[in-house]
Each structure stands twice: as C-alpha cells, then as structure tokens.
C-alpha cells in the first residue's frame, strides 16, 4: 500500500518536473519567431536597455497591438480622443498645449509629458512618486474622473467596441496567444505600455556627434552651448544629466534608482502652498510642506518640439526657460500667482541663477535644438496605423 502510494507520488512528481519542459516544447513553435517573438530594441551605442516589468515582457505583437490601441479613438467615451490626442508624434508625443484637454473637453491641470524614451522613466507623470509602471499609469487616462481624459467606463464597454473590430481579433490573438478571451483591461494596458516603451529617441544630431563620432553633426555654436550646459556655473546637467538628460532615468542595469524631485522657483505664493493648487508637486502625495513645488525632471530630448514648458505649461519658449533659470526663479508681478519664485523656501539649492551673454544664450538654444530627433517623429513604427495605406 505504502509503496503504491509512493510510486503514484513518484509518477506525479516526475510529471510535475516534466511539465515545464513539455509546455516549453509545446509553445516553442509559436515563440520561435513572428508575432510572439521577443521585441528587438535596436538600441544605439551609449544607450542601455530599458527596464521591463517581469509580468509584461516586450514582444513584437504586443507593441504592434499597443500602437493600434494608442491611436484608436474608440478608446474614449465619445470616440473623440485617443492616447495620441495628447501625445502627438509630430510633437515628440506631447500636444503643444499648456495643459491637456480630455475627450469631453475637460482641462487637465498639468502639461502632457513627452512619451519619447518614457521606457527609461523611473517614475511617471510630473509628480507622483508612486507611479512607476506604464501598465498602471495607462489606467489613469483611461478611467480617471478628475479630470476626465479618455473617460472610459470600468464596465468594459470599450472592450465590446474593440471586439467588434476584425483587426483587433487578429492582433489580440497574436499578442496574447492561447488566452480564451484576450480582450481584457489588463491586456489593453500591457499592450499600450509595450508600444510606449518602444518609442526610443536616439538619433538626434547630438547623438551622431557624441555617440556616432560625427564631428560635423552639430554646429560650433551647439558645441559651445554643450560646454555651457555641462559647466559648473550653469549646472543644467545636475538635473538634466546622463544619456537621457534627466535625473529620473533608470535602466535595466539600475532599475531602482532613487528619484529626486525639484522645486525650481516658478512660484512663491504666501503660505504653506507656495505653488498654486492643484499643482503642488509631490506634496500632494507626501503632505510634507517641504515637498511643495517639487516635480520630476523631464527629459530634454526633443525639447524644442515640446513647448510650452514646465509642469503647467506656463513658460512659453526655450528663451523664457533660460531667463527663468538665469534669474534663479520666476517673478510674477501681479494676479493670484504673484510672488518671487527666487525666494521660494523649497527651491533647489542648484537654482541659484547665472549670467548669460547674448552669445551664450544663442549657443545654449543651439545645443538644445540639437537634441531634436527628426527620425522619431517620422518613424512609421510609431505612426498612426489606422491611416496607413
């Protein structure tokens, strides 16, 4: 009796041990190539691999499905908006507005951030230290109510619309093979996240100069501007450093870097809330008065395309940005936001101000414009698939 039980247990154990091998063998033909193949990053020299959540590995099929979803207005409550409404490829995946506008016309309180190189962002959005994956972040514009962005309902109405599209039946099956019903909210967010991670910008004149060894890729003015940018008196590089020009950058080799948030002296209202609500920075999450006005450092890649600037789009041009930092903070003389940003008690010590000659100003702007990657805004891999012929 005992030996029979042991034998049965032994057989079960052997089957259990063999199961992964059998499953691997069974799924091998599907995974060997084609749609389920692991995504090829095609990263240039100088760029590390981005971190990818273990629960959502990159595949070509998910990236492609995500592209269709990203550009699909059926992903909004009234068919009037998609992710691409606030993240336009021609503007390095921003919208050109001071602050975003949702499908129903409701204004967002903050500026739409660029999605270029978002795969390297250690935290997402301007000021949420807890928002760390694109999968989670996608839920905010989809279902958020304050403000309404895409305005989708959690009862899954939009999934019915997606199911009705023949193209999606093909794409979902390829992206999530073997699932009884791949039309789920989780799969939608996973696919969109994969597409967003694929939007890598690394082909600017700066990249050709620095990583490609092409000394003529940038002007002499831009080279002078680069030295100013990385100089101690200006110290732009202290926050906008590294290959992605942001100290909020992570990678596969260092996925859990401590992310810093900065108050740059844009406002200085009287009282504890020195920044106008609701844009109080990470204070919104920490409730620490010393965190009022602290925001994430955005990447400077393609910065010439992403005006207006700052978390609330309140600075209209790169020249005005330079003026703000040169003054060590912004002074607003009248109105409800009046105050001397230079004196904000939470202002980062690095924002001390500096002097610039006219030539310095021209050189810095030339340097910043050299971070524009024309290829990323024209690359068909990131373009609207619904308009392809």
């Amino acid at each position, binding site marked *: 009796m005992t030996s029979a039980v042991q034998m049965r247990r032994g057989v079960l154990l052997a089957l259990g041990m063999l199961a992964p091998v059998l499953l691997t063998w069974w799924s091998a033909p599907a995974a060997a190539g084609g749609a389920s193949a692991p995504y090829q990053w095609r990263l240039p020299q100088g760029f590390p691999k981005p971190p990818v959540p273990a629960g959502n590995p990159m595949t070509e099929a998910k990236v492609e499905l995500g592209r269709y979803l990203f550009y699909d207005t059926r992903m909004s409550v009234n068919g009037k908006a998609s992710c691409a409404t606030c993240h336009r490829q021609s503007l390095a995946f921003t919208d050109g507005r001071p602050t975003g506008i949702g499908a129903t016309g409701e204004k967002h309180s903050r500026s739409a951030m660029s999605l270029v190189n978002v795969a390297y962002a250690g935290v997402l959005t301007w000021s949420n230290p807890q928002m760390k994956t694109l999968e989670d972040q996608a839920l905010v514009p989809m279902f958020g109510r304050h403000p309404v962005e895409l305005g989708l309902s959690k009862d899954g109405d939009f999934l019915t619309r997606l199911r009705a599209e023949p193209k999606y039946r093909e794409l979902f099956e390829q992206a999530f093979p073997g699932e009884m019903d791949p039309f789920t909210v989780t799969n939608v967010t996973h696919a969109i996240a994969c597409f967003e991670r694929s939007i890598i910008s690394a082909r600017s004149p700066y990249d050709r100069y620095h990583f490609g060894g092409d000394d003529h890729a940038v002007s002499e003015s831009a080279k002078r501007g680069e*030295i100013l940018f990385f100089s101690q*008196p200006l110290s732009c590089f202290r926050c906008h450093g*590294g*290959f992605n020009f942001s100290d909020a950058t992570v990678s596969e080799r260092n996925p859990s870097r401590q992310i810093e948030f900065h108050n740059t002296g844009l406002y200085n209202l009287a009282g504890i809330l020195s920044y106008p609500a609701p844009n109080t920075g990470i204070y919104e999450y920490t409730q620490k008065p010393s965190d009022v006005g602290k925001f994430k450092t955005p990447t400077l890649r393609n910065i010439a395309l992403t005006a207006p600037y700052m978390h609330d789009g309140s600075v209209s041009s790169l020249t005005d940005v330079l003026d703000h930092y040169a003054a060590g903070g912004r002074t607003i003389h009248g109105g409800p936001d009046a105050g001397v940003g230079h004196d904000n008690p939470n202002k980062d010590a690095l924002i001390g101000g500096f002097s610039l000659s006219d030539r310095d100003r021209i050189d810095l702007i030339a340097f910043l414009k050299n971070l524009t990657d024309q290829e990323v805004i024209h690359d068909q891999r990131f373009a609207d698939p619904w308009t392809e012929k």
Partner: protein
Amino acid sequence: MRYKRRPSFLLGFAVRPLCIVAAIGASLLCAQTPDPQPAPATLTITGDLPSSLVLKAEDLSKMPRETVSVQDQDGTKVDYEGVLLLEVLKRAGAPLGNQLRGKALASYVLAKARDGYQVVFTLAEIDPAFGNEQILIADRRNGKPLFGYQGPFRLVCPGDKAGARSVRMLETLEIVRLQK
C-alpha cells in the same frame, strides 16, 4: 591592469551629488563661465613641488596606461582610459611613498577644472600604503579621445559613490602642503 567597480558602487557623473564631497566641491567653487574656446591639451601640476610640470596628451600616452570601467547612475557603462593620478603626482615630485610621512601627511591635491570647479584629494588617499584609491586621469572614453565638456582630460574616481570628484575639463593639479 583593468579593474571594475564593485556593483554596489555606482558612479554618477551627471547627477546631483549627494555626499559630502559635493559640499566640499561647492564650497570651493569659484563660479565662472567656461571659455568656450578649445582648451589647450595640457595638464599643469603645480604648487608645493620642486618645479611645475606641464603634461601634454602625448606625454600621458607614453606613461603607464590604465582602463577603468564604470557605470553611471542611469545604467550607462563607460570605459575610461588614461594614467593613474598616482603616477602623475610621482612624476611631478609630490611627497609619496617613503616621503609621505610626518608633516607631508597634511598635504592635498587641489584639482581645478576649466569652468572653475574644484575638488580636493589628500595625498594619503592616493598613496598605495594608505588609501590606495585608483583615481584615473582619463584622456579617452570608450576608445576615443575626450572632447567637448568632458575633456581633454578628466578625473575618474571609481571608489567614490558619487561622481562629484570626477572632475571634467581638468586643467590643473595643485599640491598644497599645510605643514612645512
């Protein structure tokens, strides 16, 4: 010899420094806008020495070469090549080895950059009998000469957790003896 940093030691050349060395650097900062003209490719070692030494890139190329592989805080891996600071200081006649004792132990190196940035190293932290820090004067990055805001010379300090002492656009090393 080629050595790599311990994985837990991340070198952040382009990030906001957090440790005390940053404070030292900041306190010594003499703010000045860097001359945008190309710097002469020389490194001057001066101060409390028998005589000053001026090294050109070709001089460094003939000295014992080392390579350091470092990782930035954003995960970028970079190979720097150059000459150990120890070798350059020995050649300049700084008190090292058997001479590094008594009053000489109160000596430091002031590293100055073209943009006015300055940091300090004690001679003892560099000397093999004491700290033995493998600080490199680099002139090549990933096999190519340093240029632009990096060069033509820079320090690389693999033993530092923060990157604030890895001075770019290095121009001068000044030896200061506090007790003579």
